[in-house]
């Protein structure tokens, strides 16, 4: 059973989780459970964020000053801890996104050497 479940999942690259969390929060404050769900939904159920990575990451980002947290009620009247982006978090997201696209370009370049001419 477990083997099947992991079949169509992709391991997150080191460091990308932070970017995904920051990106998810760009649309508004969200709690930890919600962030996990959003990432899964937006990745077409490919990216499952382990709670064991999610919560340390959230606390780490908060400690860095990129997130702020507060307790609020959900639509279903459930108390939950909501995280939102700080201005510093927005800047961090921008820089991580540009780093990510550089990386994608670089990797694509490596994977498709033929198009090298076209790029330069």
């Amino acid at each position: 059973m477990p083997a099947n479940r992991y079949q169509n999942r992709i391991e997150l690259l080191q460091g990308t989780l932070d970017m995904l969390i920051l990106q998810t929060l760009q649309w508004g404050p969200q709690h930890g459970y919600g962030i996990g769900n959003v990432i899964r939904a937006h990745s077409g159920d490919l990216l499952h964020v382990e709670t064991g990575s999610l919560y340390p990451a959230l606390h780490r980002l908060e400690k860095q000053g990129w997130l702020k947290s507060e307790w609020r009620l959900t639509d279903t009247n459930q108390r939950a801890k909501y995280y939102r982006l700080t201005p510093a978090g927005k800047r961090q997201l921008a820089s991580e996104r540009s780093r990510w696209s550089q990386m994608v370009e670089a990797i694509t370049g490596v994977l498709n050497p033929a198009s090298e001419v076209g790029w330069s």
Partner: protein
Amino acid sequence: MSLLRPWSKRRVREEDFDEEISSHLQMAARDKVDRSDSKEEAQYSARREFGNAGLIKEVTREIWGWTSFERLGQDLRYAARLLGKSPGFTAIAVLSIALGIGANTAIFSLIDAVLLKALPVRNSNELVAIGDTTRVGSVSEGSGRTDLFSYPFYERFRERNRVFSDVYASGRSEYLEILPAGGRPSSEVQGGKLRGRFVTGNYFSVLGVPALIGRTFDEQEVHVEGGAPVVVISYACWNRRFARNPAVVGQRISVNGSIFTIIGVMPPEFFGDIVGVPMDVWFPITMQAQANPGHNYLKDTRVSWLMLMGRLKPGVSQARAAAAVRDLAPQIFTELYSSSMGGEDLRRLRQETIQVSSGAKGFSRLRHELSLPLIALMGIVLLVLLICCANVANLQLARATSRSREMSLRLAVGAGQARLVRQLLTESLALSFLGGGAGLLFAQWGSHLLLGFISRSDQTPVDVHLDAAVLLFTAAVSIIAGLLFGLAPALQTTCSDLVSSLKDSKSGQSHGFAQSFGKALIVSQIVFSLTLLVGAGLFIRTLRNLENMDVGYTREGLLLAEVDFKTAGYKDNQVNQLARQVIERLQNLPGVRSATVSENGLFSGTDSETDAEVEGYAYRSKEDKLNGYDRVGPNYFETVGTPVILGRGIGPQDTETAPKVAVINEKMARFYFRQVNPLGRHIFEGDGKDRTAVSIVGVVRDAKQRDLREPVPRRFYKAYLQHRDEIETMNFEIRTRIESSALSNSVRGAIKNVDPKLPITSLKPAAVLIDETLDQEKLVAKLSSFFGLLALVLAAIGLYGVMSYLTVRRTAEIGIRMALGAERSGILGMVMADTLRLLMLGLVVGILAACSLGKLFSKALFGLSAFDPLTIVSAALVIVVAGVTAAFLPAWRASRIEPTLALRHE
């Protein structure tokens, strides 16, 4: 409060995170219920998907980070757990450190009190002492001096100096008999002897100390000679004599027969300006003649007895003040002494440099006498502390060996090396502070014990208590000690090769240095303690020899009373009459067998010597004429218990009008007469028309009167009634039928009945007086035994540590030996044989060291040589017993090793 904040903040954060997790789980479960799972199943699967909550919490907590305080707390809790797990190790280590730190703190608190502390007065750094600060109890009659000053000098100096805002003077008092005014003289005096000092009226204002209750002297009031019979008393005196009764101000007391009124009590911390001699009563200097009848130094330029202390004017340096003093003093010397001193002497006096030094720490003879011994003691106890540290380091090495696998494991799973070193150091510091705390208690007891050694009186000469300086010192020593004995084992443990120690470090050669270091340490400790024990043994035996010496009379049941006739105002012939009356009264007391009188008494501190020519002796040198003498009353020898060998003693028949007689001691008889019969021969004293002759009527046994160690000098005894030398004090010898100290009250009463004004300056059994001359021998014997035992305990602890270490490291070897058929007793014997080898090496070196050191202090010994087999053998035996006891536990443990376990352990 601020210390606790990190903890409460942390707890809020924990709770917050717990709630975050449970909210996550609830939301996940609700979603699953929405997707038509049953509630229980939904909760279960939400929890399963969430994963290991404990682990997540742990990881997240690491993200928060630890404050250094939280880490310290963690380390401390861990250290406490570990120390609690091995109580034996902890107890021995703490005891060892407590002894080391305690000894250091005890000595330091003495050094602090005697050498370092400033007087408890206003701005003590402005005080400047003029003259020799050690001559606190001296009086000198003759020409002018530069170490002590006369009152006329003080008056002129005070008036004319330009560098001090004011200068006070203080001088010693003679013996004081202080009683409640109108109290019966014979009543038992409560609270011991009181010490007083004469001070000028500005004494308290220059020092800047106000009275606790009442007031201090008013300068106008005490200015007139004999005009103001007032005193200020110390807190200690108020406590001892007046039970801290606030109504003491205004009370009248009798001082040597004169009435004084108490006007104030000083605060408890003020002991006067002499460190080591706390004062009880301060008199205006203008009242000297009333408080000390027979003494009046106020007008006398020839009596130098005052110490001077000035307070610097603002902006004046001590150097400038010194120059000003050395400029002014010679002018005053010329004015005072040009008529009485020869030109050459006066010139010399004017050229002598007057000591001008900081008065911040007051005057002290004790400081002068004790500074070198105290610093030497400090050096010794620091050495002792180093030994303690080495011991604990050894104990820790033994433990570190058994913990090396734990450490390697922790390093392997990623613990930082710095973190581990910190953890181990925290353990060491925790030990060190435990030891330091215990050491403080030990020091409290130790410093009072030492003070007791130093001072004979019931009052402590200096105030020793825990103050900031002492606590700071102890804390600093604890930290340094903790680092000393913690760092080496910590580094050794964590720096050891990871792979090899995980495999096995026990048979590795990496600890060879630690082993030989440990053994060398043990051998040197044995040498050290043997030397001290031999020294202690020699001094104890010296003391016994002196105590049990035959003094030439019977010291038990003999009471001695010293009476100061001069202070009471009696002269010449009156003294003889009065002494006769006192003897009569004493003889009629119940419990008294006989009573007599002599000039010098026994061990009173005074002795007499004179040039005397013996009839029929051919003199070769001046020394041949020098003889000791004493003036004694009727039945002196019978009363004291000195056997008369030839002829007779001094009897009642030897009156003023009878022919003058003398009794000589054996030594004198042998020196001058050899085979000739001395009876009837004459002794001549003095020259010209003062020349007197006495005829020898008897020979008595040699008697020790002044010093136990020195041989008895040639001495002759004259009849006290037949001579009219000026006599100040007389000593009465009372032979009692019962325990002599029980009679002291009735003896006091009998003397006071003759004249209540007669001051009894000393009233003690002969045995006590003799015993008191051995104070220094006792101090040395006590100190050397104390440090000898301390060194012995430490050596035993060290031996225990090293043997434990060695046996733990040999666990595998012992296991193999046993597997191959070695008996348990054989293993025990093997370890004990190792111990004995170390002991023997230490003993051989130690005996050599003790013998060569013994030569240095052979002069201090009495009745035995520095090479005393009995002492050396007993010291060695003590060490062997202590060493074998210390090593037995590790050896026994080694013999209990289960071979199978030991081998598997590998």
